[in-house]
């Protein structure tokens, strides 16, 4: 026993399992998001249920199963038929024209009708119904009008015009392969379409686009600044207290809470700088502000300040990996310091700078708190980049993936849809960030190997 303790066996076991636990927790988290995010697009079967004794059976999709510990019978929560609200006038009503019902187990009917059809409309609404007759699909009643004959919850056959329909499928008939195809199509739609029905349907393209544009703008702002600062710190700075102070402020800049940076961005960049810009250059448009309001440029600038230390630290690391002999060799050939730096050092350290940049982008893409204050909105009908002069609209507000996730999760009118949609958005955001990180990691690996060879 004593020996066991002295040899540190318990500590080794505990620390090893701590590592396992840490990694396991994270993997579980990633797995959860991946599975739940994927599930959102997997064509789930439509089921039938009966509300009352005499009523006709109706169609719906299982949303959540609720089991109360107190009660023996399981209650089930279903998403009811979304057949009502079909008429044109209802086109702008929220996606929750469907109802959510809490069903008792016995109200669920055993069979899954094979002709149950799920129709996605262009405006983002989803309808469940029964396809009337296979022969009548797409059959033109009159020459001009083609569409889909459906029986909806209202129990009357309806002709859905073809131009309203984005996609439709029969979920209970699909083979595994067909399900996969539908799954991919829905993903593609999700990634390329704009949100509709109050963010509870449609895609997230403006959010992805907004994130990318903001992050690229930030990269343009932060790269030269960060690289020059790193070069100063590593190549020029004398070893004295001032340099130490600068170094400390780099570390401190990295430690500033992002929301404080957001506050600074709002109070200083937007209200002070933006306000003065407006008075100087856009006086004709006052009191409507141009730059005196949160927007793309201020968001990018705030995040640039936030990620500056990341770029500096990574670049400096790259510079310090470069053998001193190369610099001395360059000096020996008569090159000035500037020539040595710009022609010998920087090109070789370029991958390190790129690594820093990618890490900065990954950090910026995941930030939400500062953006809530300096320019992100829940819906922006116009993209920040378009074909109108001057093409990049720095003053516009934009959508952002992280904020979109927060918004859908907390402020969506349709709480049930939001729950699964959030995982899908989270999956996209996470994939983006993990890919960026992975590429930074691989770049750094290559860099290390290269210098190991030189050494």
């Amino acid at each position, binding site marked *: 026993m004593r020996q066991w303790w002295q040899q540190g066996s318990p500590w080794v076991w505990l620390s090893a399992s701590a590592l396992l636990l840490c990694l396991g927790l994270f993997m579980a988290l990633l797995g959860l998001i991946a599975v739940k995010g994927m599930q959102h697009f997997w064509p789930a079967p439509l089921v039938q249920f009966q509300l009352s004794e005499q009523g006709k059976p109706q169609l719906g999709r299982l949303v959540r199963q609720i089991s109360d510990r107190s009660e023996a019978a399981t209650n089930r929560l279903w998403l009811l038929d979304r057949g009502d609200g079909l008429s044109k006038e209802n086109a702008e009503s929220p996606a929750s024209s469907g109802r959510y019902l809490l069903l008792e187990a016995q109200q669920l009917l055993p069979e899954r009708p094979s002709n149950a059809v799920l129709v996605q409309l262009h405006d983002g609404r989803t309808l469940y119904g029964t396809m009337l007759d296979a022969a009548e699909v797409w059959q033109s009643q009159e020459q001009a009008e083609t569409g889909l004959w459906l029986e909806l919850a209202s129990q009357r056959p309806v002709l859905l015009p073809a131009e309203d329909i984005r996609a439709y499928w029969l979920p209970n008939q699909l083979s595994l392969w067909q399900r996969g195809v539908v799954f991919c199509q829905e993903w593609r739609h999700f990634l390329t379409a704009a949100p509709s029905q109050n963010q509870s349907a449609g895609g997230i393209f403006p959010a992805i686009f907004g994130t990318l544009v903001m992050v690229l703008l930030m990269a343009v702002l932060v790269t030269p600044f960060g690289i020059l600062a790193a070069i100063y710190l590593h190549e020029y700075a004398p070893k004295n207290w001032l340099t130490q102070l600068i170094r400390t402020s780099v570390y401190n800049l990295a*430690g500033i809470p992002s929301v404080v940076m957001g506050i600074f961005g709002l*109070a200083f960049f937007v209200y002070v700088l933006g306000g003065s810009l407006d008075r100087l250059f856009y006086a004709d448009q006052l009191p409507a502000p141009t730059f005196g309001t949160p927007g793309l440029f201020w968001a990018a600038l705030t995040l640039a300040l936030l990620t500056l230390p990341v770029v500096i630290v990574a670049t400096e690391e790259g510079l310090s990996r470069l053998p001193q002999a190369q610099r001395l060799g360059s000096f020996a050939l008569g090159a000035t310091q500037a020539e040595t730096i710009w022609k010998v050092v920087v090109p070789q350290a370029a991958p390190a700078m790129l690594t820093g940049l990618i890490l900065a982008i990954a950090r910026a893409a995941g930030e939400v708190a500062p953006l809530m204050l300096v320019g992100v909105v829940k819906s922006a009908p116009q993209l920040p980049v378009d074909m109108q002069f001057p093409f990049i609209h720095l003053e516009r507000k934009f959508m952002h993936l992280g904020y979109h996730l927060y918004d859908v999760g907390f402020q969506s009118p349709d709480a049930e849809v939001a729950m699964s949609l959030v995982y899908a958005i989270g999956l996209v955001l996470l994939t983006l960030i*993990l890919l960026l990180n992975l590429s930074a990691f691989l770049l750094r690996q290559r860099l290390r190997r290269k210098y190991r060879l030189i050494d």
Partner: protein
Amino acid sequence: MWTRQSRDCFSRWLVTLVGYSVLLAFAIIFVFLVWQVWPLFQPASISAQSAAESSMPYSYQVEAQRRQSGSSGLLWLDNGLDERVQLHADGRFRWYQRLDGDWQLSLQGQLALSSWQAAVLLPGSRTLLVADQEALVHSWFRLHQQLIDRPGIPLHQSEVLALIPLSADTFFSLHPEVLHWHHATTGKRLTELRLSDQPLQQLQLSADRQRMRLDWGAGQSKDYQLHWQHPAVAGGQLWSKVHYEGRREAAYVWQTAAAADDSSPRLSLVPLTSGTLKAAAYAMLFATPLAILAAVFTAFYLPERWRHRARATMEMLESMPTVILGFIAAFLLAPWLEQQLMLFFVLLVLVPAVLLVCSGLWFHWRQRQQKQAEQPGAVLVLSLVAGILTAFMLAPVLEHAWFDGSLLLWLAGQGIDYQQRNALIIGMAMGLAVIPSIFSLTEEVVFQVPASLTQGVLALGASRWQTLSSMVLPVAAPGILAAILLGLGRALGETMILIMATGNTPLLGFDPFEGMRTLTASLALEMPEAAVGSSHFKVLLLAALLLLVLTFLINTLVSLLRLRIRQRYQQL
């Protein structure tokens, strides 16, 4: 002409400039926040102003009030809205309230003083202020059919000519030769104005109560400008307990009251600061042991290839968006923990216990086999899984046996409230967010302990564990401390998890089963609603400054520790 030398020179200047501007950027952030926050701590002031012709709508006759209170012994006070008080010279009072247009007597009685000099009912409020003979203004307010006593406001002079209401929570006390300005809620004196020895006849106030006119009669009058942007904050509301109107005792309250006019915002930073510290403390409690143990194991025991992979994975997880963690914590973890609270505690105790037991058994078995006690991965994973499974099986049984089937109900029976969004949830979610930071730095410093040291100790016949505990950890200690501080800095500044999963309840204390409201969450939630320049806005900036200073201290400490450990390694 661009010669090579001038190019060199230019490049040097440019690079140096950018280098310095990093320092400048940090300084600007700091100075800007300080500059914005500064006015909060300037108490109100009164400055003389050239007289304007316009008349002022509110006028108070000094003589009239004295005469009324003195001889006839009856004074009618009015709050200008729906409350009226009839006050007798001996302290008897009748309190009327307007309900549906009629004045109704709601309260009558005797104040706890026998004589008084001046009294006032603050406009728009239910607070009655009465100045007694001993330089104290008593403060009462009506709550239903009760008079609630508030702490008195000390005066600096015992002779009071009049009390003059200015707003729902500030008033003037007029003494011979001096006018004092007080904050009624906090009881602090804001400022004073020296007057000539002539008796003042009348005091007038403008409609927006930004200007004041003093009238000595005989056409002699003077105008003043009143500056009072942040009287409550200047009165010490931020860090001390305040007895607000309508409450039964003094408390630290954060309630910004954006929608109601008649109550001033209650801006106490105490609950927010305590919330921030609480959240950070629970996160560190969860993250520190896990991260440090994992890092030490990675650095010291894992083979190079695996070490590399573990490190890379952790680094990748460092940039996990916290908005996702917050969502999962609020909508998945919180309900799960409420259902499985017992399981959580059982896991907490049982998993380490099972691991220890398994380790002991394994050790003995190996010894009996006369083999060296190496650490096999498979057995470890198995015992970990076994521990978790046992906990899952044991938890319901124990819950039935000890707590009558429900730990929650048992807790409720003991008077312990369990809120779904609580510090444990935050501890786990935010702990997960700070684990990678602590892990990376700890792993780095432990791994970089010079090989000459460790090999020397090993060569003397020590086991790996002995080397680690007696040599490596003491050497790397400052670095590990730096890692913990780094994690703490990150936990203090985290926002999204807290907004989404804490419930934003401004509670005091460190109760693990209650939520909290943090500085960061308040900043993100309330900044858009705060009117630019208002007390609320400035207090939020103050909160930001507070966070900045806090993280500045921590990060400076971190960089000093890192410097120290680098020097130590170079020396060795």
